[in-house]
């Protein structure tokens, strides 16, 4: 009896849907209940600050800017008279950002991170361009594993905050291998005086290892050129 068989198959489908009628919903009510985000979730881009001093970890090496495939990061840090970098501008355009996480992997100083926060929508697309203060503010409570090599001196003597920041900058500037050397060195460079090594053997270490090359942006003006032309291409392509 084909008809009866069909009829019972229809009933079977209805029992399956009917069975679900009494079950609990698997969805949540968003603004009241929030999902527990995974620790690795890649959301908003933030700048991390030192856990003790509260200063930015960023050394303005511009690796993240070069690693970004969509040119969402813009850093302007000219050198002052002492050849030290002064952070003038650090902007992240969250509308351009594709949340790939390459900047986080490129950074040797635990300075930039894609935090697991997702509530940063705005009414105006221009508000998605965040400057350094906002990036730092949002990043203050973001937990992270500090992969920088700690200087014992920094812990022992409670130096003034700006002094330490200067130290860090000078350390970054001091270690400037040539462009040739850059290309040679693929792995870690323990010989370098600065804190590039991925010292902490946490579980993110293998990912961090990938970058390891020191960049010296001011020595490679042509790279900036190519970067810019790539930007133009992106814009054309997107348009």
């Amino acid at each position, binding site marked *: 009896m084909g*008809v009866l068989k069909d009829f019972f198959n*229809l009933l079977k*489908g*209805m029992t*399956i*849907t*009917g069975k*679900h*009628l*009494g*079950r*609990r*919903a*698997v*969805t949540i*009510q968003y603004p009241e209940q929030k999902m527990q985000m995974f620790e690795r979730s890649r959301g908003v881009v933030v700048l991390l600050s030192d856990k003790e001093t509260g200063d930015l970890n960023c050394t303005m090496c511009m690796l993240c800017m070069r690693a970004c495939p969509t040119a969402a990061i813009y850093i302007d840090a000219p050198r002052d008279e002492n050849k030290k970098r002064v952070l003038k501008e650090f902007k992240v355009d969250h509308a351009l950002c594709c949340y790939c996480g390459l900047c986080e992997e490129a950074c040797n100083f635990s300075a930039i991170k894609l935090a697991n926060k997702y509530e940063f929508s705005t009414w105006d697309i221009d508000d998605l361009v965040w400057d350094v203060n906002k990036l730092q503010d949002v990043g203050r409570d973001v937990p992270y594993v500090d992969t920088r090599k700690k200087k014992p001196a920094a812990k022992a003597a409670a130096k003034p905050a700006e002094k330490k920041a200067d130290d860090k900058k000078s350390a970054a500037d001091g270690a400037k291998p040539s462009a040739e050397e850059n290309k040679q060195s693929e792995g870690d460079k323990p010989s370098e005086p600065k804190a590039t090594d991925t010292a902490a053997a946490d579980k993110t270490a293998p990912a961090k290892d990938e970058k390891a090359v020191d960049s010296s942006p001011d020595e490679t003006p042509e790279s900036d050129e190519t970067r810019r032309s790539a930007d133009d291409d992106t814009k054309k392509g997107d348009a």
Partner: protein
Amino acid sequence: MELYPVFMWLHDLLESTGIGEPWSTIISYGFLAVTVFGTLSILALFLVWWERKIAGHIQQRFGPMRTGWHGWYQTIMDAVKLLQKEDIRIATRDKAVFFWAPVVCFVAAYLAYVVIPFGENLIVADLNVGILYIIAVTTFTVISLLMAGWGSNNKYALLGGMRSAAQVVSYEVPMAVSILTVIVFAGSLSMVDIANAQQGNIIFNWFIFKPPFGIIAFLTYITAATAEANRTPFDIPEAEQELVAGYNVEYSGMKFAMFFLAEFVNLFTVSAIAVTLFFGGWHGPLLPSWIWFLLKTFAVILLLMLFRWTFPRLRVDQLMEFAWKFLVPLTFANLILAGWFKYAGWHW
């Protein structure tokens, strides 16, 4: 046996205040109409909300949750929103047809309630051809859908309108014939008489429990009724995956809301008819009769909702095939056998 006493009382009251004929009659009839209309509109609004909740829970979601307790006034807010919306009228429409289609649909949906007994004595007019009247007026809906399809001057809408015409006309036949089977049982066309014939003996006097004709008549009726109410698996006139929205693709604002509400009023209509014909109407112990009627109707609606959220949609030619090659012969055989049993005087 009707709401007529209420009408008479109101009529007398108006007479006593000095309002003479014909105004007292007109006002009291108007009062009656507004009562039925208001009740049904509230029911339709409730059904929209209920369907969304049922769909949500079947799919393990919540459904509306924002407006009030479990979103109970969601549809009211939707109606308010639709009222405020711009009424978009495309330039190439057929002006009169486009305007009148939702009105016809809306009115046709409510017409059936003249003869549907909501409970003991809760009926507007107990016509002696009640069920025939229902079959006649519910067909108005198809005219409105055709009007909407034609008036929109849109290919998708036209296809939807043509589909609905073909579908509703085809399914009128098995629906009417399965209703006829019940009329054979009851021996009357009056809705009140049909309901009264199923009184007593707990539930076993219900016509659905007259094996095997009752159950077959019910199944064929509910199938045809699903098609009449344009619901999945027979919702091809508005099949959103094929025709976007079918006949109402060009409608917006309140005109769309009228189509939408009419759809749910139709849902209630077919379920109420099913209850009256097969489930003993308003009869039941202890509780007031209208509560029994609503409970049974909601049970049937729940069944129709379960259909909608379980089954895929049939194709238009398969739909026709199903109606003419399966349902029509089955219902006719059922009717003839039931009539034969009745004539032979066999009790079952």
